């Protein structure tokens, strides 16, 4: 080939290789960046007075007197709106039938949107659902909700696809008692809602209120901890003992070869199949619990992480210098004593690395717990109930909240908060593992 041609090919190859790795890095930034950025919004956000009321009522947090005072000011600010609503209602009765009919539905829509924004009007009976007792608790949501008051959503079907068009409501009500409401809501929203920054670390531990409309993700975090720890408690003894056997006792024979093949096959089983197996074996056959339960989920997850633990422990044991073992044996220690007092302590950091990585995996898996442990809505599970109770878990509830929840759009902040929390937990565990491994490497170097 011509020399110049070869150079061009070489350049192209290098460029595409660099491009591939850059693309990978960029993708990650584009994907994880927004999840973290918006996930933080669940912990740090601008709250409204409604949030302070909710916190005081539901969790007993905050200064009751200060809030009462603030609430009075807010009510005073909101008074013109309520007055306008009532005045317009009366005015509506006096209109000719046709105009009345034309305005009644838009008026009801405005009123509903205002109720969503500010909470129920004073003097009305309190709604049964907690989510309806309070107006918008987050400033960003409140700013979105104002649009519902100000605009009517219509669809323009003149083109090939329908296009959303926002039609202002104010002209319809021009000259009526309701007219000032629109300008007031648009210009004085801050006075109506009293936004203030809030740091809400309790999001991690608070119970959820009314299907995640308010409150935190405590039950999910607790469930994830139960499942991950439970899986480890079952899998670690099994895995470490198997690793000791493979490394220290087993001789190359067909039995050991077969057992190794089994472990390798276990590593390749799809996670959803573990879920099916957990349902068929632990719940339907062994009946470890009448239905889904924490223990059934932990058992299923323990099988999933078992190969990882065996491999990591085997590697750790194999990397213990041979001289350690020979020294122990020559001092007269038996095989058991050598393993327990010399090999295992030396291999411990390596084994821990495997355990920590597996724990991250167990915490993040969803498919194996769908049929065995996870429930969409539930209270925090007490330690005594793990043998009988299904539990919410971060991974499953993230799926559930963004697909099956009745108001997916309204609780985006909870979803992002959950996703970010789950990623943080898993990453923290893996970073620990990386540091542990670096320490082992340094120690082996001497």
């Amino acid at each position, binding site marked *: 080939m011509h020399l110049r041609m070869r150079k061009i090919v070489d350049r192209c190859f290098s460029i595409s*290789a660099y491009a591939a790795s850059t693309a*990978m890095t960029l993708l990650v930034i584009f994907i994880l960046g927004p999840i973290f950025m918006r996930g933080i919004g669940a912990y740090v956000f601008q709250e409204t007075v409604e949030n302070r009321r909710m916190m005081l009522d539901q969790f007993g947090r905050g200064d009751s007197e200060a809030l009462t005072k603030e609430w009075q000011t807010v009510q005073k600010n909101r008074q013109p709106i309520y007055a306008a609503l009532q005045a317009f209602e009366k005015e509506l009765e006096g209109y000719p039938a046709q105009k009345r009919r034309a305005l009644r539905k838009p008026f009801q829509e405005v009123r509903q949107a205002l109720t969503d924004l500010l909470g129920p009007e004073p003097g009305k009976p309190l709604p049964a659902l907690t989510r309806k007792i309070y107006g918008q608790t987050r400033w960003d949501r409140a700013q979105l909700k104002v649009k519902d008051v100000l605009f009517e959503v219509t669809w323009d079907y003149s083109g090939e696809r329908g296009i959303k068009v926002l039609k202002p409501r104010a002209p319809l009500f021009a000259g009526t008692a309701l007219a000032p409401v629109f300008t007031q809501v648009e210009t004085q929203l801050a006075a109506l809602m009293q936004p203030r920054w809030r740091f809400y670390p309790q999001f991690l531990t608070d119970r959820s209120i009314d299907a995640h409309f308010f409150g935190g993700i405590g039950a999910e975090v607790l469930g994830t901890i139960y499942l991950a720890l439970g899986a480890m408690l079952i899998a670690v003894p099994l895995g470490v003992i198997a690793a000791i056997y493979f490394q220290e006792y087993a001789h190359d024979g067909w039995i050991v070869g077969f057992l190794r093949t089994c472990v390798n096959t276990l590593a390749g089983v799809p996670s959803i199949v573990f879920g099916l197996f957990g349902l068929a074996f632990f719940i339907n056959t062994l009946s470890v619990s009448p239905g889904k339960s924490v223990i059934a989920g932990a058992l299923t997850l323990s099988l999933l992480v078992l190969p990882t633990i065996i491999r990591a422990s085997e590697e750790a044991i194999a990397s213990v210098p041979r001289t350690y073992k020979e020294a122990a044996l020559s001092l007269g220690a038996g095989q*058991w004593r050598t393993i327990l007092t010399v090999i295992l302590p030396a291999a411990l950091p390596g084994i821990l690395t495997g355990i920590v990585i597996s724990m991250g995996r167990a915490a993040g898996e969803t498919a194996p717990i769908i049929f065995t442990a996870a429930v969409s809505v539930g209270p925090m599970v007490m330690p005594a109930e793990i043998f009988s109770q299904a539990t919410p878990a971060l991974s499953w509830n993230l*799926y559930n909240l963004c697909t099956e929840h009745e108001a997916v759009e309204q609780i985006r902040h909870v979803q992002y908060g959950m996703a970010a929390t789950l990623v943080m937990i898993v990453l923290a565990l893996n970073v620990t593992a990386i540091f542990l491994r670096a320490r082992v490497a340094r120690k082996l170097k001497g």
Partner: protein
Amino acid sequence: MRTSDRIVLSPQEIRTRRIFSALGRSFLLAVTAVAALAVLIIIFFIARDAVPFFREYNLRDFLFTNAWYPSHQPAQFGAKAIFVGSLIVTLTSVIIAVPVGILAAVCLSDMVSFNIRQLLKPVIELLAAIPSVVWGFFALVVMAPFLQDVLGVESGANALNASVILAIMALPTIVSVSEDALQAAGRELREGSYALGATRAETLIKVVLPAAMSGIFSAALLGIMRAVGETMVVWMASGNATQIPRPFYNLLQPVRTLTATIAGDMGEADQMTGSAHYHVLFAMGLSLLLFSFLCNMAGEWIVRRQRKRLRGM
């Protein structure tokens, strides 16, 4: 005096010690067997609950017909579209992920400096650890609206969305396994090739990649296994419509995969236990299990062949 302080033991003590040692040994073997044989128990129980389905329904109808009406009377379980859906999503993701993954691995192992590699390797490992449900969340909440509103696709949850996210998910595994294989190919090969006047591209394509081929095949296999068995991403991103896209390469139509069907349909498992619908899902699980088993065998075969070749060299 305690026994352990003496050097000479009586024959009886030696016998007890031997018995204890043998007991300990068999205890270890027993525990190891439990851990290792778990996979056989899994295969047995999945197969046990899949058998009643095959007893009542025809295997050929299951694999090659298109009528999926599990809750009709009488129910029909033609899962062709679901198998094809799994195939489409997996193939597309592998076609995206394998070339990109190999190029990135080449870049990492032969082009960047040692320090950057030391920095990037743990980052790639961290990426592999991110839970699949988070990728699925991204696919559903960010990617689907983007496809729908910006690119004007009819439905944002479709085969392409799921494949792209699956590819991104499989990349870290593919990159790190192929990078290891490329590193293992050795310095002498590269230097020999450079000494003969080859450019970097020629060295890598004609010398290093063929030498690392078995490792790269294993990486691709791992990627395929991950893509076939992945549940959450495809469940959330693929649209879950039981249909074969028309034409079959139209990735912008929603599809439904085996894993998503199992996850989605087993929802009311407690009430379903024993029904044909319950058993058909186990039949699907069994197919997945068989597939991963085949992939594993292929992987072990490649490794064994490579070992034999190295020994022959």
